[in-house]
Every structure is written in C-alpha cells, then in structure tokens.
C-alpha cells in the first residue's frame, strides 16, 4: 500500500541545509496499523507530510498503491488527498466559522458530490462517531474529544483507504484520547490502513507495529504489543 524507498528530505533555510529525513525505507501493507514514534525534530512530521502528498521528497521514491507520487501533477495530488487519504490533526483543523455538518462536507465539495447527498452522508458520518445531535454546533461549542470526532468523520467521508493521524490525542485528556483510539481500532478492524504519529506509549500500543525515528532516520521497529 505504502512504499518509501531511500527517501531524503532536505530543507534549505538561507545558507544552511537541514536534512529532515535521511535515506528512509518504509513499507506499510494494506490494512496495517502503524505508529511512528520519536522525539520532536526526528522527522516524523515531515514523513507524514510527504505520505499525505502535501510535500515532496528531495530524493527517493514514494509509491502509493503502486503508483509513484513524484509523477503526479498538482491536480492529481489534490485528487489523492481528497479520495485516498484522510487526515486527522493534533489541533483538529476544523473551520471555525462552519458548523460540524459543514466541516464534514468539505472534502465532498471538492469531490464534486451534489449538496443533497453531501448533507445526507455528512449526517450519517456524524452519527457514526456519536455526534448526530451536535451537527449544528460550531467547533468552539464542542469539547476537544467531540472536535476530534468531527475531524475523524471528515477524514472518513470520502472513504479513503488510508488514515494519516498526526498526534490525534495530543490535545485531549486521557479519557477522550482513549475514545478516539477506540474509533481508530474499529477502523483498523474494518480494514483501513492507519499511520499514526504519537509520543505516548499507551497510544502506540493500539498499533500492530511501531516505527522509531531519530534525527531523520528510522532507528528501530517493534510490535505494538511489546511496548
């Protein structure tokens, strides 16, 4: 499903070059639940951005479902982000002016789904994360856990094969965090590929496989159960 080969990412800031990723190789199979751990500055966010087609590697290859991402133009990349990948962020990234329903609708707008069907599907998605009665609330009227559930509903709305979650529980209390992780576990059981960045052992334990990063390199791999 995801194949990363000899990937290097170098950021230039003025004269200095900083290598955020150095010669990374990573294979993630369809339906796998992988956690990425590492201290800040280890390159895990850079890797997530590249996996999410928001950024391109300096060298190396990234194959998604067997297709090389470096060959795609901006329209095709937008399509991949829209249809194949669902993002979940640490800070939820909901649009503050819109209510929960409208937020969930956004990916469907860019997928060209007509308004009536969008509304219906967004409503179902909110019900499935237990927020059917909160559809008209704006993000600031919801708790952190509820916001993240809206964000998950939004990430799932175009039925992507892959969920990329960047510290999804980082801004949540442990109870809400556990609830969110239950949703991910359920998605995993249904066959969705999940890549999750975290630095909490309890969260990483939900994953089948944990990959450790340090200074832009993949340094270790463990089974989640061993944490």
């Amino acid at each position, binding site marked *: 499903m995801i194949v990363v080969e000899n990937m290097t990412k170098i950021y230039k800031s003025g004269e200095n070059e900083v290598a955020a990723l150095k010669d990374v190789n990573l294979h993630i199979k369809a339906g796998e639940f992988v956690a990425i751990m590492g201290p800040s500055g280890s390159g895990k966010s850079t890797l997530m951005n590249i996996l*999410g087609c928001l950024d391109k590697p300096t060298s190396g290859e990234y194959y998604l479902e067997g297709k090389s991402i470096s060959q795609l133009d901006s329209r095709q990349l937008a399509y991949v982000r829209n249809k194949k990948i669902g993002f979940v962020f640490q800070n939820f990234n909901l649009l503050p002016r819109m209510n929960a329903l409208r937020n969930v609708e956004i*990916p469907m707008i*860019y*997928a060209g789904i007509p308004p009536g069907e969008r509304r219906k599907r967004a409503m179902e998605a909110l019900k499935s994360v237990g927020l059917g009665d909160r559809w008209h609330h704006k993000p600031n009227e919801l708790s952190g856990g509820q916001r993240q559930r809206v964000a998950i509903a939004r990430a799932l709305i175009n039925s992507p094969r892959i969920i990329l979650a960047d510290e999804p529980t980082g801004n949540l209390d442990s109870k809400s965090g556990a609830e969110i992780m239950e949703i991910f576990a359920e998605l995993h059981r249904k066959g969705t590929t999940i890549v999750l960045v975290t630095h909490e052992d309890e969260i990483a334990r939900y994953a089948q496989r944990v990959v450790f990063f340090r200074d832009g390199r993949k340094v270790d791999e463990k089974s989640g159960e061993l944490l």
Partner: protein
Amino acid sequence: MNFFESVIIAWESIVANKMRSLLTMLGIIIGVASVITVSALGQGGKAAINKELDAFGANRFEIYYKYNPDKPITEADAFTLQDVRTIKEISPAVEYMAPVSWGSGSIRSKGKEIGVEIVATTADYAKIANLKLDAGRFLNSEDDNAKRYVAVINESLAQELFSSSTALGKKIMVSNRPFKVIGVLAKEESIFSMGQASKLMYIPISTYFTYSGTNWINNIEGKAVSQAEVDKAIQHSLSILHRRHRSEDRYDAWNSQKEIDSVNQVLGIVTVVISAIAGISLLVGGIGIMNIMLVSVTERTREIGIRKALGAHEINIMVQFLIEALVLSFSGGILGLFFGFGVSKIIGWFIKVPTFISWQMIALAFTFSTGVGICFGMYPARKAAYQDPIEALRYE
C-alpha cells in the same frame, strides 16, 4: 464545486465581517453612485434643456442689427414690413417670417399700475415661437390690416387681471388705449423662468405703429422649413436684406440650434469630467478590495491549508477568493446603484432638474464594478491559491 456554492461561501465570509465588508465596498459604492448620479442628472438635464429649446421654437432663427460702434444703424438700415414679406416670398428655406417690435405699457388694475411688455408682431409669430393658446385665437392678418386694438395676453398677465378663463373678450386699458383680449396663452412650464414670469401682451404691429408713432422694427424672426434648412434660411434672409438696403454687414442672425449644441457640449464636458472622477473613485475602491482581500488571505492562511489537505486544488482556492472579491464589488455596485438613484432624485428635486437613468448607464456601472472586482481580486486570489499547504497548516 460549482459557482453557486462558491458564491454562498463568499457571501458567508462577507457577512461574517459585516463592518469590514461594508468599508471595503464603500469605494465601489461611492464610485458607482457618483457615476449614476452624474449621468442621471446629466441626461435628465440634457433632455429637459432640449425639450425647452424645442418648445422655444424648433428651426427658429432671429435676425438683428449688427452692433458696430464705428457705423451706427441708420434709418436706411431699418427693417421694414416689406423686407419680411419679400424674404418669405423669395426664400424656399423660410416657412414663416414675422417682424417684432418691443414696447411697454401700463395697465391700471385693482387700483394699482401693472407694467406690461408689449410684443408687436404678426400672425406668423405664433408659429415661429411655438405659442400655445389656452383660449381664443392668436393675431391674424385681418387684425393687422385693419389695425385692430386687439391683444393676446399671456397666462401671467391674465392671472393678474382676471382669472384666466374669463379674460377672453374683456377690454383692457393699456396706456389709456382700449384693447380687446382675443386670446390667452397657455402657462409656460420652464426650468429657465424662475421667479415671477413677465407679463406679456401681443398686439398687431400695424396697430402699434399707429399709436406709438414709430415704424421701428427691433428684429425679424423666422422659422425654417426644416432643421437642415435653418442655415440656408439665415443666409437667404441676410443676403435679401443687404441687397434691399444696399448695404453690407449690417445684420446678423442667431438660431436655437447653436444654443442646443453649446448646451450639449457643456453638459458633455461636465459629464466626462465627473465620470472621470467617478472612475478614479472606482479605481480607489478596487485598491480597497485588493487590500482587504490580501488581509483576508493572510487571516485565512490556515483555512487555505486545511482546504488543500482535504483535496482542494489551486483552482478551487483561487475561484473561491476571486468570487469573494466579485461578490464584494458586485454588492457594492448594487448598493451604489440604489444610493446613486436616491442621491440623484434628491439633488434633482432641489435644483429642479429631472433625472433619467438609462439601462446603458446601469450596465456600464455594473460592468465596471465587476471588472474592478476581477482585476483587483486576481492578485490576492492567486496568492491564496499558491500557498504552500504545509506552511499554511502551520500558520497561527
């Protein structure tokens, strides 16, 4: 994502920042309102003045003595009744011709003296000056031949002496001579006659000559057969007069078309100048829109990042911001239209000028304001579209 949805999203963003949006639109509102106001008053005024000059007498011309301090006008130069008849007979371009002598008199009424202007002329004058009668008839050739003491009075004088409907057939004593009222003119509606209208009476020129003891004709007025023949009618008249009086360069002519042309020219210049100012204000309005759109793009950097992460292409983002600029400028255009409509009505009411708003003007104002929206919205929209999504997501 279709156009209609983009408009809704843009509208929500505009409504979310009501005050800011209104201030942004202000430039466009003022620009469009001033274009509409100026053109409404200009076109209305032009139509009114043209109508006025038309009422004054279309194809009308006037021949008068040329003023020259070195060569004063003498008896030999004076217009004669025969001059008038000859011109009308000879020139195919002249339809009507009438001599005019101006005099004054006084009428005693209700114990006070009323000054009255006397226009001594012939039957043709009514046709030339396009006079409209409320009652009775105008002077005719028998009145002139028989030197009758008859008068046609204007509405203002009729009101002063009698109630206008009962004036017909009454005798009035003008400088101790009895005149019978045979006609009353209709009231003149004119934007030029502000204040009190002068009191006029028209009498046969032969009658005037008889009692005043003079044969002096102040000027000759005529009407050409058509608009195109006015210049020819004037040329004919002047050459006939000079030949009959064996003189040169003693008479000159004036016609209403020149007046219409110069009024239109002045109005045209005024309209162009004020429209240019309005255009500048639209330009400033456009810059205002660009300014606010840039602020809006910066403020919503994060939103742009989120939308991109969720599958928005550059084009989607660009269209969204462009439509926002368009909705702003278009709404400004609509508000400006109503504003301009109201202001022109108010100003028109104060300066007594009718207003006229043409569809072309409305279309022009909208095209211009929408054009401003697109032109000045393009740069911020592009800036929004090509933002790096990672940078945008990180933006606080």
